[in-house]
């Protein structure tokens, strides 16, 4: 069997982290091909439902990327993202999903290297954890 390839859904804000990922590209940095980036205007747009939907649909990890504190293109959207993130983190933990699978990173437009580091690190950690749903759950049911 081939090695488990985690699938990570990433929500990157348009102004910082998406641009950082663009920069990683123009700088030809190489990183793991496991993320699927969904562009939103601000990390504040990331509805916790999106994250749960991703987990429910089979994502092994979810990464949110936003501008650094004080640097939000929309002033404070990232703070709202941060509050929701911590609350959701607790919900996700209660639901038996490991911490490493949900991650929030502040990555500025200049930090292409950080995209590479974060993605590789996250892929490594999730690879070690294994799939979120190893196989279709065998439950006691009809």
């Amino acid at each position: 069997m081939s090695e488990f390839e985690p699938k990570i859904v990433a929500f990157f804000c348009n102004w910082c982290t998406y641009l950082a990922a663009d920069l990683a590209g123009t700088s030809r940095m190489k990183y793991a091909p496991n993320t699927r980036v969904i562009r939103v205007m601000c990390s504040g747009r990331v509805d916790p439902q999106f994250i749960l939907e991703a987990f429910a649909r089979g994502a092994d990890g979810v990464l949110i990327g936003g501008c650094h504190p004080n640097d939000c293109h929309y002033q404070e959207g990232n703070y709202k993202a941060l509050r929701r993130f911590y609350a959701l983190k607790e919900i996700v933990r209660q639901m038996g999903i490991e911490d490493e699978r949900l991650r929030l990173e502040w990555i500025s437009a200049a930090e292409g290297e950080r995209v590479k580091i974060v993605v590789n690190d996250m892929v490594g950690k999730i690879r070690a954890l294994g799939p979120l749903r190893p196989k279709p759950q065998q439950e006691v049911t009809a």
Partner: protein
Amino acid sequence: MSEAGGPVRIGVYVCHCGTNIAAVVGCGEVADYARSLAQVAVSREYKYLCSEPGQELIRQDIRDHGLNRIVVASCSPHLHEHTFRAAVEKSGLNPFFMHMVNIREHNSWVHEDRAKATAKANDMVRAAVRRVALQQSLSRGRVEINPGVLVVGGGIAGIHAAMTLANAGKKVHLVERQPSIGGHMAMFDKTFPTLDCAACILTPKMSSVKAHPNITLWSNAEVTGVAGYVGNFDVKVTRWPRYIDEDLCTGCLQCVEACVYKEARFPDGFNMGLSKRKPIYLPFPQAVPQVPVIDPETCIQFKTGKCKKTCVAACADRQAIDFQQKEKIEQIRVGAIVIATGFQPFDASRVPYYGYGVYPNVYTSLEVERLVNASGPTGGDVVLRDGRRPKSVGVIHCVGSRDVDSNRWCSRVCCMYSLKLAHLLKEHTDAEIFNFYIDMRTPGKGFEEFYQKLLNEGVHFIRGRVAEVTDWALDPTEEDKLVLRVEDTLLGTVRRIPVDMVVLSVGLEPHADAGEVRRLFNISCASEGFFLERHPKLAPVNTFTDGIFLAGCCQGPKDIPDTVAQAGAAAAEALALIDAGAVETEPNTAHVIEESCSGCRTCVPMCPYNAIVFDAAAGRARIEQVLCKGCGTCVAACPSAAIGQHLFEDAEIFEEIEGVLANV
């Protein structure tokens, strides 16, 4: 514009970008895969979709196949979203029926495994196909542009931008932090490679700024608040007190003459501390405005309140001196902003092994600019701090540049100004001059020729990074000298060169407070801290914030010709914006779905722009479309999902999520 009724027919276009994408992503496979997806009517690959034939291909398909949704898998939407929207629009389809998939920056350029990269592209295209099917016809907003422009920084970049705009008939506010405009260029003696005198070419421009009817000059002032958006920036400028009324002062300088301090005794910042000034002083003879300034740190009246105030007496009935002056807040509205805040020279004491601040005869290049300047502290006589005249000088290049321990970047101007200083020092002192360089970088008009000229003048060039400047002497020839220890990489030997004077050619770096300025204007910085342009090639003076442009060294180190050219470009961009009269805005605003709104007001405090108002009579929230900037924070916060965001509707994002995961 087509509202695209009827069944969804999607066209998918996969770009090779030459080999940029095709070398890693199997574009044909992606196109084949896309063809198998529901609602996809046409799927093609093409070598350069952004080219005119590429765009025409899409337009032709829209006509021939009745396509009403388009997916373009190519580069970053930051690069070509507007290109493909325009292409789609030209064919009569609403431009917002197009969605881009980034398979270059986010895929082919960062991955190597062809199978995995292709699988990723398939996932992303599938998500886009599902998303685009839900996309709706939208129209752009229109914002009127206020014709005024704010120029921040009064160095050569700001001066040139302000003059260009003012000459085109625009009202300009020029804000400078220092008491005089002129910036670093005003401190230079000659300019390379033509050796024309910096003051001669700069000071007439400075005077023109002051005299121009379209320019309001506020020196000793800072921008302390920026609100609003392209076309309508509300800017707060704080004008710090200079304790002399600019309108009443005639610039006679009798107050300076009359100061109770008969001798100047405080370090003169303009001369890098190499000379002294009084507590009341004119920054430099050609300062604009020609109005002195009082330094409350050193003025006896401010320190004790018991000065004889001979300055006030000297000013007599003009009464321009005002010890009670307070800062003044000015509030202006402008349509565009040019940021030209410049650079700061690298602090040479951060390289301890070069002995700056330890050995008095180690100078920075900017100090030497003043030293060789006829209007400098010594009247152009090169006298060392210990009173001697140097018989030998070592010029060390790349101090605080190309160095992993300080700044990694090349500061671009140091090779040339080091050559210039070598020339000037030789001219002034006839000393033996040694230039220590890593590489000689002379890629400008007349630059290499200037280098050749220096070689012919007998200036020594030693290729090697100086290890240290020290005062320990091995033999009598080194006594009382500064010794430069260096590996001469052309000779392949370690040398000790004793000299009387060392010049450190310091690099250029962002201002220490560049981060705060960046936040103030809501623009981005590159990793080294210089302000980030929207695109290095295609939008080099634009920022990611519409209506804000960059000029000069705040964007990166550059010489005077490049700075002036960039300032002209920034002014032209600002002019183009203003003369358009109005600008179209992205339709990515949030909107309340009224029948679902319970009036809970969760959204109201989410908005930093006060775009959301609670309509008490209706009991519902309402979003002012012109104020909304489209972050979507309120959308995520709305507990009844009663707020949508154009282009980023919940349903569209859910489709994307499900799309990327559909093969899990």
